[in-house]
Structure formats: C-alpha cells, structure tokens
C-alpha cells in the first residue's frame, strides 16, 4: 500500500464512524484509537457547524423570533447520539443532521407566526442534503463536460422542491435589516436544487420542460429521444439541457 493510500485510510477513519469500528481499521493500529475518536468527533462537530451556519442562514436570522439558533443542536444529546453513525459528506448523515435542525427550529414558537416557515425549513434542509456526496477536487482534463452526441443523465441527488410560498422572492430580504418579517407571496413554486461536480449548490425555478427532462434523462436517451418523449422542440431541449448542465442537475455520459 502506498503512503497516499494509507493517508486515505486515516482520512476515512476520521470521516466515517462505522469504519472506525471495523476490523479493517482497528487491526492496522495506525494511531491511538482514543485520540482518533476524539479528533473525529471534533471534526464532525466542525463539519456540520459550517454546513448548518451556511445552509440555515435564514433560520439564523429568524432566531430572534423563534428563539432557536439552528447550530444549537450540535450541543444537544440528539446530535451526540448520531456521532457513532455519522459519515462526513454522506447524504444520509446530512439528512439526519438537517432533520435534527428542522425539528429543533420548528419547536420554537415564533410570535408573530411566519406563514412560510415550514417551506423555508424544507428549502434549507434540501440545500444541505443536496450538497452532500463525493465531489471532484481536481479535473483530470480540461474540465469541460462532454456534450455533442453524448446522452444526458440526471445527476443523483438533484431535488425538486414544491413550495406553497414563493421563497425566492423573500430570501434576499431576510438577509437585509428588517423590523417586521418580510412577506412571501402565497403562490406555489417548484424549485430545482442541484450540485455541481465541485460541490457548489444552485437553485432555479423549475419549468415543466425541466421536470420532463429530469424525469426522462437516464443516460441512454439521445437529445432527439428526449425531445420526442417530452413533446418538446429539439432547440428547447438543447437550451434546457444547457441550463441544467450549468446548474449541475444533468451530466453527459459518453457510454453507448
């Protein structure tokens, strides 16, 4: 085993709590297990602190009304109970931690009530879950995704979010100083939340064309297939795919 591969094992042990308990790791006896465990717990708290502060920033602003700061869960027994199962960067762990945050913030009583609060929490939770997953740190080639005759495929983890309130209209206002909580228009919106290969999360309003293409793009159908099955013009499919690719929701496979 190369030193680089060994370093990967150490990194995995720090990130992956179940792996730390495995014979594969323990039999190597590479480091003091108690020190490794303590450092891993420190890293887990730091890892999720950064993500909660970033993805639940609107709930943080509203904490003066709800009395619930999202990151407070990191000091609670419910988070400590998750530590033995956490795998930093995994979608399941992100879902579990974000779920704790939502439950904690929801239990705060806002006066006056914020009508779109549930939507907001679902939005923040979705952002945090979509961000999770392996990412590309280095491009092997020129970094340009394959297109041309390749077949588009919806990226795993891309989420569609149906909301009762038009959150994109109110989110920027929440980050500005306010005395009364800004209103969100009560009209249904559907959002697409996707992540680039490099881990950047982006959100856009989802059109019917977007929903159709996300549903159909399985890595086997060509652009013409998609146009025919979705009942769209090829130019419309091409333009939609370009937007979805930039968002990180669709990638092109080059296999046959």
């Amino acid at each position, binding site marked *: 085993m190369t030193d680089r591969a060994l370093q990967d094992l150490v990194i995995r042990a720090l990130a992956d709590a179940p792996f730390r308990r495995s014979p594969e790791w323990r039999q190597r006896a590479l480091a003091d297990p108690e020190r490794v465990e303590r450092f891993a717990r*420190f890293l887990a708290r730091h890892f999720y602190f950064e993500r909660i502060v970033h993805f639940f920033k609107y709930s943080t602003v509203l904490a003066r009304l709800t009395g619930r700061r999202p990151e407070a869960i990191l000091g609670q027994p419910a988070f400590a109970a998750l530590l033995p199962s956490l795998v930093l960067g995994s979608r399941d762990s992100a879902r579990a931690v974000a779920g704790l945050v939502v439950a904690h913030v929801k239990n705060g009583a806002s006066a006056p009530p914020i009508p779109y609060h549930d939507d907001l929490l679902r939005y923040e939770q979705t952002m945090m879950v979509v961000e999770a997953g392996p990412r590309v740190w280095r491009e092997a080639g020129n970094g340009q995704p394959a297109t041309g005759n390749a077949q588009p495929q919806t990226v795993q983890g891309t989420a569609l979010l149906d909301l009762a309130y038009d959150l994109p209209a109110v989110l920027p206002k929440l980050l500005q100083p306010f005395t009364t909580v800004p209103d969100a228009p009560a009209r249904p919106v559907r959002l697409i939340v996707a992540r680039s290969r490099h881990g950047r999360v982006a959100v856009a309003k989802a059109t019917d064309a977007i929903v159709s293409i996300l549903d159909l793009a399985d890595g086997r159908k060509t652009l013409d297939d998609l146009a025919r099955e979705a009942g769209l013009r090829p130019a419309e499919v091409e333009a939609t795919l370009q937007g979805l690719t930039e968002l990180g929701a669709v990638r092109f496979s080059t296999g046959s």
Partner: protein
Amino acid sequence: MSPLKIGAFYNPHLGRELAEARGIDHLAMADPPRADDPWWPKIKERYTLLLHDYLGQLSEPLDERSIQRARSLAELYHTPWVAEHFQCLHTEDGTYNLNYVFPPLYTEEFLTRFVTNANALKARLDQPLVMENIPGFFDVRHSQMAEPVWLRRFFAATEVGFLLDLPHVWLEAHYHGARPTDWLAEFPLEHVVELHVAGVTTDADLEGPWIAPAEPSEEMLAFAAQAVTRCPGAKAVTFDAFSPSLTAEALLRSVERIRAALA
C-alpha cells in the same frame, strides 16, 4: 530589517469596524469577498491583502482550474505572497473530506509529492509561495520522520517561504509533552516570511487545548516575541482568527496586544 507588519484576517461580519480601524497593517483573506459585501471596496483600497484561501492540497498537483483561481485571487488582492497549508484532508477519489486542515504523513513519498507539486505551483504564480505548518492531534505510526525534519527538507528543496503558525507549534509541543520553545527550535526558522499568532481554548471533544477564535494568552504572546527574534526574514505577523463568533473588540485588542508584545 524593516519593521514587522501586524495584521489580522478579514472577517466580513466585522467589515464596518475593519474599514475604519487603525493600527492594522494588513488583512489575510480566507475567502473571496462576497459580491454583496458593502465594505469590500474600502477594505481593498485601504489594506495590503494576503491571499490565504484554500487553493488545493499539494499531495496532488493543482489542476488548471485551481491554478487559474489562485492567480485571479492573487491579482485581485495584489497580494505580496500566496499562502497554502501542509495539508491532505480529502481522499484522492473525493469520497471523504474532513473540511478541516489535516497534515500529511511525514514520509519520503509525501515529501516528494509536496516538493514536486509546490515547485509546479510556484512556477505558475507571479508571487512567492509560502506554506503553513499544520498540527496533528495524534501521531500516525507510519510516519518516517518528525514534522520539523520533514519541513526542513521541504523548504530546502523548494525554497518557498515558511508561514510559521505559532499556536500550531504550541499545540504540537503540548500534545508531545515538549516545551514549545524547544519544539520551535527544531523548525527551519530561516525560511519564515509570516507568523500566525492566535488563542487556544479547551475543546470539549478533544479534552484539551485547540485553536480557537480567541485572544492570544500572555504565554502565547511571550512565545511569539521569542519566536520573531529567531526568524530573520519575517515580514508580517497575523492574528489568526476567522469566525462569525469573533468580535471586533477581540480582534482589535489582539492586534494591539501582539504589536505591544513584539515592540
């Protein structure tokens, strides 16, 4: 030797205070400025800015995208040097990521990797490269040499600058049961360009001290005062705290106390 510049990190939530502050010579930039940061234009106009962003881990070569990002940030800041860390915090396949600085194994293989990749990065930058030491909370038995030996060989092979993080040295000494000044003496201090000074507090998970966005203790300031006398090429000392929980008072007072300790 020209007087040491004393500075801090740019904390965007303290933009207003930093834009108006006196007694700060430079600001290190850990993140690019946000597009909606109202204080950024004034900060950029007022201060010497040091690029201290995550550029990549030099256990692997930086790809073209990362190099271009580093170059464009360096140009934006007009930075006098570009900083990176001796870190290897994500697996090669990208599956696991610690999201926190973590040192490489101190082995021949990693030395070769870091020397090769630092030399390649240095050749693509218009400013000097400096590299910061990273503490380990535990030793990995596979390491072949002590951190200071590994660093000495790295700097000899690359001639890049050394960003000496003193709290990191202090922590390494603490967890190895050594006196910080004795441990520091092992490091290649002749390469130091910049020093970091910060506070440490007890962490509940670690059950011991660790880096925190806190004011440096008197002991740390005395350590810094002693260290700078051994670093003939040092140009700057930076209060190393970057956190939403950091207050303007703590930042300004820390810079003032560092300046007084080094006077």
